[in-house]
């Protein structure tokens, strides 16, 4: 076991350097492929997606007669980036006002970073001239409403809330009315964390979605799924489950300021066709960035 611990420490320092070296100046060998596989697995890309990616790279290498590892490197990065950019509508909700009231519904498993991301989003859109209102539809978790309210106060965005353990649908409805009354043009709806396997809770989420749909034309205009980048393969199941329930239109990948690489993004964008819109890179209000596929791919190789 001690050996494992040591190798781990060593890997982190030398592994990526080794990739660079291997890919940099040599001809492609079996080692090149092994290293690439390790790189993908270590980044939580998952076995199935990694295998698919490498098979395609193999084919291309053969078809195009690629012999230099350096060239393979380029081609691979290109492929990875294309995969991330493959979903249609790969751009985040525009910051321009496009309709009377735009509604963003935010969903995800427990503790993924929904409430914090909503505060960041509200700030982001507000800075770009939007009139934002927040709906505190997590009526379940202890102090969830207070958490959002504190954020609201900090950034000067009003928060609509209901009684503890009240009906989240009712809060959503009130929030829409308030948004119209106050002439807000962007409503962001926070929801309680829930595991996608909990049928009842997913049903509750559908109801909130239904309330919004009935209250505002074509709402919610964006349904954003917040995924913790520290998660492994379960994130793909989350994306599938939430999409099935409420039609996820985009992902916010949080906690990328830590060590994880967020490789599940490839399966989510590539297989499920759901674009990544934003990344969370810290706990502060400005720690939100639009997703940049090229930079994301580069960070895999760092």
């Amino acid at each position, binding site marked *: *076991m001690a050996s*494992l*611990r040591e*190798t*781990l*420490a060593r*890997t*982190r320092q030398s592994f990526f350097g080794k990739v660079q070296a291997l890919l940099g100046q040599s001809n492609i060998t079996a080692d090149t492929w092994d290293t690439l596989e*390790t790189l993908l*697995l*270590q*980044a*939580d890309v*998952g*076995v*199935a997606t990694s295998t698919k990616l490498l098979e395609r790279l193999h084919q291309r290498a053969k078809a195009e007669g690629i012999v230099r590892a350096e060239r393979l490197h380029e081609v691979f990065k290109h492929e990875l980036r294309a995969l991330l950019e493959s979903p249609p509508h790969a751009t985040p909700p525009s910051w321009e006002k496009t309709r009377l009231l735009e509604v963003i519904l935010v969903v995800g*498993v*427990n*503790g*993924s*970073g929904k409430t914090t991301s909503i505060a960041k989003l509200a700030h982001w859109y507000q800075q770009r001239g939007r009139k934002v209102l927040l709906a505190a539809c997590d009526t*379940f*978790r*202890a*102090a*969830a409403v*207070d*958490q959002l*309210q*504190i*954020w609201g106060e*900090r950034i000067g965005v009003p928060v609509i809330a209901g009684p503890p353990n009240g009906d989240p649908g009712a809060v959503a409805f009130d929030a829409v009315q308030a948004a119209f009354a106050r002439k807000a043009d962007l409503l962001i709806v926070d929801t309680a*964390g829930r*595991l*996608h*396997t*909990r*049928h*009842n809770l997913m*049903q509750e989420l559908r109801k909130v979605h239904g309330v919004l749909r009935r209250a505002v034309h074509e709402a919610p205009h964006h349904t954003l799924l917040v995924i*913790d980048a*520290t*998660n*492994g*393969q*379960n*994130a793909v*199941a989350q994306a599938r489950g939430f999409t099935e329930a409420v039609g996820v239109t985009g992902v916010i990948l949080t*906690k990328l*300021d*830590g*060590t*994880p690489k967020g*490789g*599940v993004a490839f399966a989510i964008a590539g297989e499920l066709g759901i674009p990544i819109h934003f990344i969370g890179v810290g*706990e502060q209000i400005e720690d939100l960035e639009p997703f940049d596929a090229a930079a994301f791919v580069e960070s895999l190789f760092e």
Partner: protein
Amino acid sequence: MFDTLTDRLQAIFDKLSKRGVLTEQDVDAALREVRVALLEADVNFRVVKDFLARVRERAVGAEVHRSLTPGQAVIKIVHEELLATLGEGGKLDLGGPPPRVILLVGLQGSGKTTTAAKLALHLRKQGRRPLLVAADIYRPAAVLQLQTLGKQINVPVFAESDQAPPDIAQHAIRQAVQSALDVVIVDTAGRLQIDEAMMQEVEQIKARVRPAEVLLVADAMTGQEAVNIADTFNKRVGLTGLILTKVDGDARGGAAISMRAVTQVPIKFLATGEKVDALEPFHPDRLASRILGMGDVLTLIEKAQQQFDEQQALDAAEKLFNARFDLEDFLAQLRMVRKMGPLGELLNLLPGMREVTRQLSPDVTERQFKRIEAMICSMTPAERHNPDMLNASRKRRIAAGSGTTVQELNQLLRNFREAQKMMKQLSTNPRMRTMLGLVQRRRPR
């Protein structure tokens, strides 16, 4: 799903007719599949490598017992190694002069605050007098969150404004002594293991309160980084145990293997829900089956035993597998799922059952349920037994009799047919049969 690994292995070994000793080729073929299963379960790839090397060493040349196929023989060794890696579940060690301190640490959002409340409730039930300490001064409403939970479970919460977390923790101990409280549970802010300032803070808290237990609270959904997280926290604050949270989802939980492999400290609890009583002791055999993708049959049985009469649960399981499944059974199932509430969730632990329970308990509200009940009760026994005979005029009669509409009745029949189809599939699935056999074997005489 449940059968993937075992099935895949079976397919490999079906080609080999000979039995006796496991050859290198046998083992390597099997281990390729095991590798995929472990990686899919989020076990760190290096940990997988190490693990497979150990299994290989044991398996090559091993005798295959006459009652096992080679595939089963390899699985058995894999399972044993997994058990060894997961280790036995540990208990809290709170002996010594009170107050004893439990320090909870971990990444953001892993479940520390919720788990602190759960531990407090657990200890209070054992006759201890816990004090919860709110040492997260950063997250908005973190203190209020703990205070709210404390109120729910009737456990005092120590909080101070304008103080640094190490001071708060130290003051809490003084408070515990004064109030004759014997366990102090310190909830800390979430922190990244690479955040130097925050890691220093937790070291300071530890130095001040000298905890009996330092527990890493980690999300069961964690991926490859689990090793680095656990390793760093262990090096910085010397962990005494792990708590795996959000186990109630469908994450395979391979992170537990990774964290055990690097820290060697025992897994002390599993957190299985958002409510304050959702804390369970750790059983390595179940997690091992889950990581290998073999279903959590034992957990199902034990939960069923706890929450309702075992006979009822067994009957329920048997009914579910019964090929005869008419509207009467459907109604009985609906009633049972409603009455037992958690049964629907329990059944989800059985692989393949999620779809079935979805049909059975499509989250019917009280009102909807009443209407379904009314419709079925308005049918003749023959109609319940054979819904195919429901023609338009019969449907109108039933709708009128139950105060519902024909559309609703049609919807009910659609749901029923889906459920029936699923039941058929399951009852003809040999693996399901085997599992039922397992359930039956545990039936008390």
